[in-house]
């Protein structure tokens, strides 16, 4: 597949941009509570996120469960509706125009966490892959290729050779790794610019993961496809990401080049996450107590402050920022070149001002 339309690597115009994104899930109120005037609580899954994805780069979205990374990815894919905020594709806002949305849906594809569940067990491999073509009404390739040639090419590209051997197979006849390759082929058949991968290898056997990751990196190298990889595994980010964004309770708290963020982290949460990655000989390592709070009840001030080691050990107080940590919400400030973090203490130590928080949600229309 010729990468004719894709922007050249190295160009600095983002292919995907997210501005001020807020995604909320409404809670429910029982009848009695509703009658008493209690309003339904809403979980702020994504609470003000700005993000850029550049052509040909791999951006890892890391964090624990509940941080909003999956919701952010799904909203980008159009599977969730944002409460407010905008998504820009190739510089143009994603309006409600169906034509634009269809085009978007063709050029931004998703790879799923559980390849077994993501394939219709009653459809053959061929049909699962051809589905994308059929949904978009594509029955000829750019050079006049027939549908079956496009499917064969996609399967080949995803490492399943000879491709026609797999046309009539059902998902249950393939192994986990092969099923994930089928999902990837299904994404490739539409010649996308962006692939959003939600935990692409976490449900696969450990020895099989490397090949799938190699495949994804190969797609980036050969086809210049940009990738947004959602993962809880920082080791995976180390292996394949150009940049890493760490999320906590609906916000990005640190973002920067992968090698920087993972070896010289600035935000206390990132540091804590890196400390607990298991390693040989590690005994009695420090870890955070408790669990992340509910997105329904986000703490005041810096949302990480109740668990922040810098607060509990008194470092924040000694530096005079404790008051701000407890009461002032904040956004990302550039602490090193291209390396951003949302931390009062770190901003203070770097001699810069803490950035103001992202603006609150503004309901469209």
């Amino acid at each position: 597949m010729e990468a004719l339309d894709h922007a050249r690597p190295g160009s600095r115009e983002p292919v995907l941009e997210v501005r001020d994104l807020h995604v909320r899930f409404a809670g429910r109120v029982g009848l009695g509570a509703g009658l008493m005037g209690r309003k339904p609580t809403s979980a702020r899954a994504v609470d003000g996120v700005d993000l850029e994805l550049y052509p040909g780069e791999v951006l890892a979205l890391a964090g624990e469960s509940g941080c909003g990374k999956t919701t952010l990815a799904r909203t980008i894919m159009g599977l969730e509706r944002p409460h407010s905020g905008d998504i820009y594709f190739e510089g143009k806002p994603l309006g409600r125009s169906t034509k634009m949305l269809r085009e978007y849906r063709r050029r931004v594809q998703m790879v799923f966490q559980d390849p077994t569940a993501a394939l219709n067990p009653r459809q053959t491999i061929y049909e699962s892959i051809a589905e994308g073509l059929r949904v978009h009404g594509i029955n000829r390739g750019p050079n006049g290729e027939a549908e079956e040639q496009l499917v064969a090419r996609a399967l080949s590209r995803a490492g399943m050779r000879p491709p026609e051997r797999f046309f009539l197979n059902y998902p249950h006849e393939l192994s986990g790794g092969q099923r994930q390759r089928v999902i990837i082929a299904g994404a490739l058949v539409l010649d996308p610019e962006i692939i959003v991968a939600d935990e692409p290898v976490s449900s696969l056997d450990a020895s099989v993961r490397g090949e799938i990751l190699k495949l994804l990196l190969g797609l980036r190298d050969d086809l210049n496809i940009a990738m947004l990889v959602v993962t809880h595994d920082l080791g995976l980010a180390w292996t394949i990401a150009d940049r890493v964004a760490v999320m906590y309770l609906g916000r990005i708290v640190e973002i920067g080049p992968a090698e920087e963020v993972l070896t010289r982290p600035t935000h206390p949460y990132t540091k804590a996450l890196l400390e607990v990655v298991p390693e040989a000989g590690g005994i009695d390592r420090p870890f955070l107590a408790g669990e992340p709070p509910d997105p329904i009840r986000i703490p005041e001030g810096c949302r990480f402050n109740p668990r922040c080691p810098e607060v509990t050990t008194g470092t924040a107080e000694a530096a005079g920022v404790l008051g701000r940590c407890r009461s002032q919400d904040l956004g990302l400030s550039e602490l090193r070149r291209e390396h951003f973090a949302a931390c009062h203490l770190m901003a203070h130590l770097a001699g810069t001002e803490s950035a103001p928080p992202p603006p609150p949600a503004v309901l469209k229309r």
Partner: protein
Amino acid sequence: MRPGTIGPTGAGPIPPVEDLEVPAERLLSPRRIVWARRKRAFQRTAKTYRKSKMGMAGLAILVFFVLVALFAPLVADEATMDPTSPATGDAYQPPSSEFWFGTDNLGRSIYAMTVHGSRISLTVGLSATLISMAIGALIGIFAGYYGGWLETGLMRLTDWFLVLPWLALAIVLASLLGRSLSIIILVIGITSWPGTARIVRAQALSVKTRPYVERARALGASNWHLITRHILPNVGPLIFANTILTVAIAILSETTLSFLGLGDPLAVSWGTMLDFAFSAGAATTGQWWWLLPPGLAIVLVVLAFTMCGFALDEILNPKLRER
């Protein structure tokens, strides 16, 4: 085919684009793939079905009755049913070599009536079921897929029809519009769809949330595509198994309504035969040959459908299979 037998998947460097092309002749066309898939699926189901003794027995009985109904004029002389024709015999005759099942109060051959009656009973049963299935499946799928107000509205409608007393409705309609088979088909059709609708809705709801439906949505599929390509094929087998069981119920219902005298008096079905037999006092005078054939025929047909339905249910729901 098990993983490990398909051979190593490509792990080497990805070859240049030209090497990826596969000559078109080697590839199967999409249509052939769809047919190949359907054939395989059918063969697989047939193979499992053959293993069920109950299912095979039921199928055999059904095939027998269908053949009888199809070739009725060849199997039994219609003239022996016409009281005006000389082919009929004396009234109230027990089974003999001339009339295998004996004769009724008008001298008509009960054998001929049973054979021809199969046509009516089966036709009415199948037509009513078709109506019932169509309504039930449509309502169930739309309610399950769309949810929200549509679901609530449709489900309340279903509840309303569920509690409708079908017998009373039949009697009222028959007295208003006259007695006919169409009335019977209509009544059975509109009162038996709620059961199907509920089952289909539950299944549609479950399928809707599965990841592969979400994947199709992420690909940009329209609602129509999702319903026809994903929901329907996964709900289809359930509808089919349910249909088989509903036919049994429909035939029984037709028998009941005909027995109560609501059917077309000129049409000979097993139900009307029983009606005439009872009216003529066959039970009290011991004319078993009049009651037994239609009664047994009904029992056998209903049993056959039920057995097939159970066998299909076992195939669809693996949890019911024996270890």
